[in-house]
């Protein structure tokens, strides 16, 4: 499913979301900013984004190591 040459878009998406997720979750752990309801949304949403990023990275790695068709 990856482009024949160049770049599999899932790799940069995975990288970006993992990094942004880590930044948000880290900020949620040390910072005092909360949603109005008191939820530590930075921490929770950061974790969700890291998980999504890792899935994307995993998918791009798997298709890279898979043998080419044809």
């Amino acid at each position, binding site marked *: 499913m990856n482009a024949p040459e*160049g*770049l599999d878009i899932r790799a*940069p998406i995975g990288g970006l979301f993992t990094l942004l997720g880590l*930044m*948000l979750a880290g*900020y949620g752990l040390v910072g005092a900013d909360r949603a109005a309801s008191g939820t530590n*949304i930075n921490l929770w949403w950061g974790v969700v*984004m890291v998980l999504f990023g890792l899935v994307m990275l995993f998918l791009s790695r798997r298709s890279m190591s898979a043998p080419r068709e044809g």
Partner: protein
Amino acid sequence: MEGNPITHLAGIDYAIMAVYFAAVLGVGFALKRVMRTSTDFFLAGKTLPAWVTGLAFISANLGAQEVIGMGASGAKYGIATSHFYWIGAIPAMLFVGIFMMPFYYGSRARSVPEYLKLRFDEKTRTLNAASFAVMTIFSSGISMYAMGKLFNLLLGWSFNTSVLASAAIVLAYVTLGGLTSAIYNEVLQFFLIVFGFAPLVGLGLNSVGGWAGLTAKLNAAAVTNGLPEGSYTHAWRGMTHASTNPIGVEWFGLVMGLGFVLSFGYWCTDFLVVQRAMAADSMTAARRTPLIAAFPKMVFPFLVILPGMIALALTVGHGAGGMIPAKLAANGAPLVDAAGRTVLDFDLATPMMLVKLFPAGMLGLGLTALLASFMSGMAGNVTAFNTVWTYDIYQSHIKPGATDQHYLWMGRVATVGGILLSIAAAYVAGSFNNIMDLLQLVFAFVNAPLFATFFLGMFWKRSTGHGAFLGLLSGTIGAAVHHGLTLPIGATPGVKGGYFGLVHTYPSELAQTFWTAIVAWTTCFVVTIIVSLVTQPRPDAELTGLVYSLTEKPKDRDLPWIKRPTSLALIVIVLIVGLNLIFR
């Protein structure tokens, strides 16, 4: 543009934006070495898988104006705004995927105007290409202007800096990596928009007491605004008559005007979206592109309309501390309508939700999502413009027969030129608001008849170039005449219509827009048929691959059923009927 900004950003918010900008530029640089021919640059080498083109298809359409505008409409009309998606997009997306893509992808056309050249003649193509090129420039300029103004108001950023900086980033990644870069970044932007807005809906619903709490609050708001209870939370209630629903349109005008003419005219003929599908790696992938896009499109109302509805629930009955601020008159006092109710600045519904519900950190992510939607919309316009300019105007009228390297170079030049023109348009929009209203009106007249031309071209082999050309012209004139003879209720003659005299008054501006489109389409359809019947048709042999009855039907029997375009379309139809029943 002075006054204090509504909020300030923390370091973490800037850091998130910076990481995003680095990522989109990185994608552009990584793709630079792959751009060797004009096909790589304009058509992404026809190498992309369907899920990538499908998400780009939806993302190119999801500009900032869509995100902000749909939130505003959610606050104005409630859940009925989802008609713009469920009636006004999905059926046309299914149609273009199943029936029209075989001709766009299967013919040798490299753009939508070029299809018109192959099917009809040069003049029809040039008419379409020229109006399309002008339109993309102005729509990207208008959204650039809106974005600069919004960030100035929210964050106090300088209008010039935000316009020039975002234009520079889009310029860099499109010039480097062409359509592939635009499409890859659109996929990235798609996920960013989803991840930026989903928690907004979650926190918002939480703060109004869930769906039940939202319904109760919006029922009260409906009564306050003089509408029956449930008007904001039911999409079809009161649609039998224009006066009993918040949109002010009856069901026939809605289904024919929005659901048929405007929606099919946009999704089936606009090169901005069709270009994404044409970049797919195979005919099946091209056909699946709009069908895959239909799935997220179906649930986007919950992402972009719900924030507006929640904002309304947090405004009505909250006095001056409400979520949506009042629209201000020139002297700075809040505007009040004839019934004594405060007029709300609906365009601020979604931005205020971001600012008030998100803490530092998430706010950076939400605003980055807004910037991403702005950039994907702009890149969509720019890539469509550089292709139509290079292939349909430059190669066919100015310099035919040059080398492929020359056209690749021209594509990069056109990207720079297109962005410079958009910036100019953004400043024109800032200085002459009326000119922009007028231009958007003219575009509406030019676009409305388009689908009649494509429909007859693809499904009636007897239709001729003269018929198509005259049909398009008279459709546009028909739209102008209808608009010039009607007015929405309460408006004065001028840019809102009525400049040729007044024969009918519509209950709302949307009703007038929808009926203008219906008139334009019908005029074009009838004139094309009449002129075609008295002019010389092209022989069948020249029309193979361009007309339905003379083209071999695509076979997808050998595909697993889940990958067949028709079965995807069936799943979408079942889901869309279900959604309409749930929110009837």
